[in-house]
């Protein structure tokens, strides 16, 4: 069995990489898959907090790489799903504590145990990014409907291709349909046209995300949240299911259906 490694990246900070990683990982575990999440944001770790696992950390990724512990000792089991694990980042170190070769080796080791390896990439295009993509087979680019986020996403897609990670998929996060309708937010159609990669999902802006992040409970597990439903659909698409896009608004939905060839 050889697991698949996804890197969740964006270039720009604050667009929802960590939230996406937590929800996608939890969603896949809910589908019964064996999943390991890697926090590659050494020095600014957050994934443990978003999953509510911060107080369980004893060893981290740098300890594994430096040989202070075995890989299994650093893996933290999720509270809700025993098939979900987290390999936390070190907080007191920086990105140079790990190099791309070590990351690739680590990912290969995890591939034997898990169905999915999901790597939460730090913002930026420096060593942290290079570490995060080193072991990845596939990439998911997260962006928001803002010119700056789309600009950074475009840069990242180019860098992924240069590094040999082909055909990344796109998640558009924090979408506010009322603002798009008023012409105050970038049109989704325009974004897809610029970035020209496959759309994996659209996640509406949802204040429940703030609550879920603070409580350490991924929104994908909650019923009746729009963002949770969107992340659940993304999870199923990763698993190969054909799931129509979330119904943001009828007119827009049809447009997008056309764009992704579902309608």
């Amino acid at each position: 069995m050889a697991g698949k490694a996804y890197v969740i990246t964006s270039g720009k900070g604050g667009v929802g990489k960590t939230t996406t990683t937590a929800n996608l990982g939890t969603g896949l575990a809910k589908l019964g898959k064996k999943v390991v999440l890697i926090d590659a944001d050494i020095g600014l770790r957050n994934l443990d907090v978003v999953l509510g696992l911060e107080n369980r950390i004893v060893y981290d990724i740098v300890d594994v790489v430096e040989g202070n512990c075995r890989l299994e000792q650093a893996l933290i089991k999720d509270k809700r799903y025993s098939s979900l694990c987290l390999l936390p980042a070190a907080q007191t170190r920086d990105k140079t504590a790990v190099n791309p070769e070590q990351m690739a080796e680590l990912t290969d080791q995890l591939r034997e145990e898990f169905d999915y390896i999901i790597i939460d990439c730090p913002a930026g295009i420096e060593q942290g990014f290079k570490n995060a993509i080193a072991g990845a087979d596939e990439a998911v680019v997260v962006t928001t409907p803002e010119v700056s986020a789309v600009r950074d996403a475009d840069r990242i897609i180019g860098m992924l291709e240069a590094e040999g990670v082909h055909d990344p998929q796109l998640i558009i996060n924090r979408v506010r349909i009322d603002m798009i309708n008023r012409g105050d937010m970038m049109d989704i159609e325009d974004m897809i046209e610029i970035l020209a990669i496959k759309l994996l999902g659209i996640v509406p802006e949802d204040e429940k995300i703030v609550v879920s992040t603070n409580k350490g409970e991924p929104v994908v597990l909650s019923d009746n949240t729009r963002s949770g439903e969107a992340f659940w659909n993304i999870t199923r698409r990763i698993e190969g299911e054909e799931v129509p896009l979330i119904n943001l608004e009828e007119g827009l939905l049809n447009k997008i259906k056309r764009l992704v060839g579902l309608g």
Partner: protein
Amino acid sequence: MLNRGVTFKGDLEGLIIILNDELEFDYIKEELRSKFIQAGDFFDDDLMVRVKLGRRGLTTKQKNELLEIFREQRGISVIEFINNDNRFVDSKEEGDTLLVKRTIRSGQTVRFEGNIVILGDVNPGAEIVAEGDIVVMGHFRGIAHAGAKGDTSATISAFRLEPTQLRIANYITRAPDIPPNSPDTPEIASLKGKHIIIDYLRK
């Protein structure tokens, strides 16, 4: 008296005192004493001192005599004696304590061979590692490891103890997932058998 037995140097971590290893111990001792008298109130509070001995070895009596001289100086604490091998001749004197007067933030670590006192808060994501006790005169919300070299009698106390994780010697405990209502009073964590327990600080 020719001043060639004792040299004072400063670096980022504090003061380095170099004792010439070719001269008689008593001579060195007197020169050290007179240097301190010359210096008067020159030294800051909580100045850390490392004493370099060169090839000299110290008997316990000699070491205590030196420590006596340092103790007479207000605000100076001897951190370690170092000989030529750069090996600690003595790193942990009973009561050796590092005083840190600031807030320790996420990603920062304070490590010391003795006790650690923090005059400030310790935030989540920060780490305090001491071979002895840890005392936080503020809110403790990070990770603490007391008795890091195996001292099971080490304790961790704070004005408000709301840690992410506590470690004493080889034992470890973490905060409950649903945060309890912490009392608005100082508390102390210590080892009882194999468990870390938290109690009110009543001393």
